[in-house]
């Protein structure tokens, strides 16, 4: 990446509004949102140019040439006052109405059985997605041209589900379930980001939305989805470690981050916040994953979320194999 990546001149002349403002349109909402966005943008440009042009014109034309220069002009004009109240009022009335209409479409979940429903769990600082067959992923997989309904849960603090190419966003609030829906219009990979501040790794709380060609391709993917297929337990454990959000706070290199390093977690004595000590082992790992506040290592904040219900016994088994391996040397 260079210092000041200024677009070169030829590419600038070929720039379209969407290269500068709203990015590619990947859901059914995008067209309407962008139409309204550019409508407002052109209105804003008109008024800004008007204000700027009048300012410059007046400043040049009525520039003070002598200290007691004659001044003139009216001090009141009802026609002007009414006009510049009424015209903006009509314009913002239109914006309000169109904005509300577009918004209602976004917030009216499709009724009927054919929509794909996915449960979304957000936590500091990862997303996971549970599909109708119980499969769980860290990236969101959905079919193109098919309605998708997300049920948003937060396990700790506020987060916000934000996919800009879909032009959609919804806060994820602990203690209540928020629902949103969308219909992707093209296959591909899109960025999912957290838009509500949630702590140290807020900016890295992102995932991908992977849109499959169509419902059939999505179903094929979902049926055959087994991330651990054909992997040795240690390799499978590494995948668990890397895909379940553990790496946001832990590593296996020996340096502490937000959480203690897990190098040596199997078979080393540790002191806990309450002053007790014990040699941590496989059962300690299992307990910490399922009930993270049970034994917090001294010197660390109790910020780890519980994984109970979101990790299978099989996965915990893999994870322990992996951590045993990295604790050996």
């Amino acid at each position, binding site marked *: *990446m260079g210092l*000041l*990546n200024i*677009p070169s001149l030829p590419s600038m002349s070929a720039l379209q509004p969407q290269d500068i403002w709203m990015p590619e349109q990947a859901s059914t909402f995008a067209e*309407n*949102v962008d139409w*309204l*966005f550019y409508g*407002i*943008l052109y209105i804003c440009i008109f008024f*800004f140019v008007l204000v*700027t042009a009048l*300012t410059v014109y007046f*400043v040049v034309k*009525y*520039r*003070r040439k002598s*200290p*007691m*220069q*004659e*001044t003139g002009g009216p*001090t*009141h004009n009802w026609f*002007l*006052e009414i006009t*510049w*109240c009424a015209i*903006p*009022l009509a314009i*913002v009335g239109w*914006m*309000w109405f*169109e*904005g*509300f*209409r*577009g918004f*209602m479409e976004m917030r009216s979940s499709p009724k009927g059985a054919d929509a794909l429903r996915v449960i979304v769990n957000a936590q500091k600082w990862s997303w996971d997605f549970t599909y109708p067959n119980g499969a769980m992923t860290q990236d969101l997989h959905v079919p193109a041209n098919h309605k998708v309904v997300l049920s948003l849960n937060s396990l*700790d*603090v*506020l987060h916000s589900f934000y996919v*800009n190419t879909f*032009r959609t*966003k919804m*806060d994820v*609030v*602990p*203690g*209540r379930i928020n629902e949103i829906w969308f219909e992707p219009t093209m296959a591909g990979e899109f960025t999912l*980001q957290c*838009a*509500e*501040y949630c702590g*140290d*790794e*807020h*900016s*890295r709380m992102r995932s991908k939305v992977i849109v499959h060609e169509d419902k059939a391709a999505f179903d094929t993917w979902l049926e055959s989805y087994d991330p651990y297929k054909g992997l040795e337990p240690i390799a499978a454990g590494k995948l668990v470690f890397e895909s379940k959000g553990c790496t946001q706070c832990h590593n296996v290199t020996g340096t502490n981050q937000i959480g203690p390093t897990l190098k040596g977690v199997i078979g080393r004595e540790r002191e806990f916040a309450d002053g007790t000590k014990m040699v941590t082992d496989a059962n300690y790992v299992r307990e910490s994953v399922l009930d993270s506040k049970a034994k917090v290592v001294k010197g660390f904040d109790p*910020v780890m979320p519980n994984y109970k219900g979101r990790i299978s016994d099989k996965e915990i088994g893999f994870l322990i194999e992996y951590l045993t391996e990295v604790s050996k040397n």
Partner: protein
Amino acid sequence: MTSTSVIDKTAQGGDQEPENFLTCASGVKSWLGTLDHKRIGIMYLICITFAFTAAGLMALVIRSELFFPGEQLVSPSTYNQLFTLHGAMMVFLFIIPGIPAALGNFVIPMMLGAKDVAFPKLNLTSWYLWVTGAIFFVCALGFGGLDTGWTLYPPYSTTTSSAVVLSVLGAFILGFSSIATGINFVVTIQKMRPEGMGWFQMPLSLWAFYATAVIQVLATPVLGITLLMLIAERTLDVGFFSPSMGGDPVLFQHFFWFYSHPAVYIMILPAMGVISELITTFSHKRPFSYSFIAYSSIAIAIFGFLVWGHHMFTTQSPVANMIFSLLTFSVSIPSAVKVFNWLTTMYKGSISLATPMMHALSFLLLFTIGGLTGLFLGTLATDIPLHDTYFVVAHFHYVMMGGTFVAFLGALYYWWPKMFGRMYNEFWGRIAAVGVFIGFNLTFFPQFIAGSQGMPRRYFDYLPQFTVYHQWSTVGAFVLGGSILIAALNLLSSLRNGAKAPANPWGSPGLEWVAASPPSHYNFDEDVPGRDPYDMELVEWGGSPEVGYVPSAKAKAAFEEHRKKIAAQSRGAH
């Protein structure tokens, strides 16, 4: 007639230095115990300048960190503390007290021809409360800092290990400082107008200060209650907001924004007020449609109370969103009315491009961009993708910094000669004004683009596609910082090297310009009659910048008549 009367003395230009409010008493005690609104205003000015400098330097560290994606200078947790304190300090320690408590304190009584504010002791108390609140903020830094964002949203703020209680107590105390100032200004403007000055003969900035003070008095208690609830939840486990204790985090957002959105108008209304003064003075002309500008301040204050829900567009019910979207647009009309009226005021004026006017013009363009980009955010469908992105960051910086801060600078240059009796350097003043304008746009315009492309706010790290916008922004921030430094050096060096300021360098008929520069301890040496603050026939050019503008024959006659009247009254009393 004796020559002690203000109106005659200012006309002479004054040979020997008369005693003024700065020289009438000396020593630290004479400042820390002063009840003089002018001295309190200057103490505020010094303190908020420190707060602004600290919070501004934090912004430069933030921008430097963001020059490249990934970790550059500071850790994520330090970064989060920096943006939190940048926001909290700018809002609570600088912008809210900025124009009203520092500059307003100085000029409001003088605009009314009065000796002081209605409650001088309350005025000093509010300054001490500000200092106490600021000390709490500094202490919070030493006890783990604050990493919640200035918005303090639970459950993050109720679970983080940073010094939430200490910082929140600081904000709570600052709230009382703000309420005290508000009450003082409401009473001062309501009760201390001079004879002959009705509501519609007041300078337009007094309408704005009045509207601001009313919001301060009515909205700030809600902040106080909300902050106490947050403290109760953290220290006593009372579950107002955390779902794990049966609370509702969105309830906090409603309480918080019920204060903090009106607070946005506490921040911008005084700026609008001083811009009305600057544009009329430097167009040397009566404002176009006085009554519309005056009423629009009141309208903004009232509507400002009804729009808080637009901060929850991505959380709350569609019906609530529809209503709050509609109410949000209602604020745009009085704001637009002001801009159009300011523009029309310049029509057929005699426009001087002195430094304060450069800032007023800068304000006009930046506030227009800030206001217009609010339309994207008030419109529900377009707000959804833009909510909580850099688009919002850019929008409120255009209003708060391009608007309020630029107006603050303009007002500071404008009243500086009155405050300290010295003229700053016009050349460097204009250079700094242009530098602030360019640096500001370079910093914040790319953020509109980054936001619409999908760059969320409060991000320590970002995707490489946003690098170019961040780099422009960082370069702009340093241009902006450098220009502000030039402005500061210019003003400070004028205290030593500046030419002696006449009583009325700009030609405003406002009463504050009748007093000497700097004013005497009691502002005026005689009882001052109210007069039309925009009747340009009351002043005439004195022939040279050293003399400035002097009272016209019409003004002198009005004073003479007032003196006779007072003399007759006192004879009648005997």
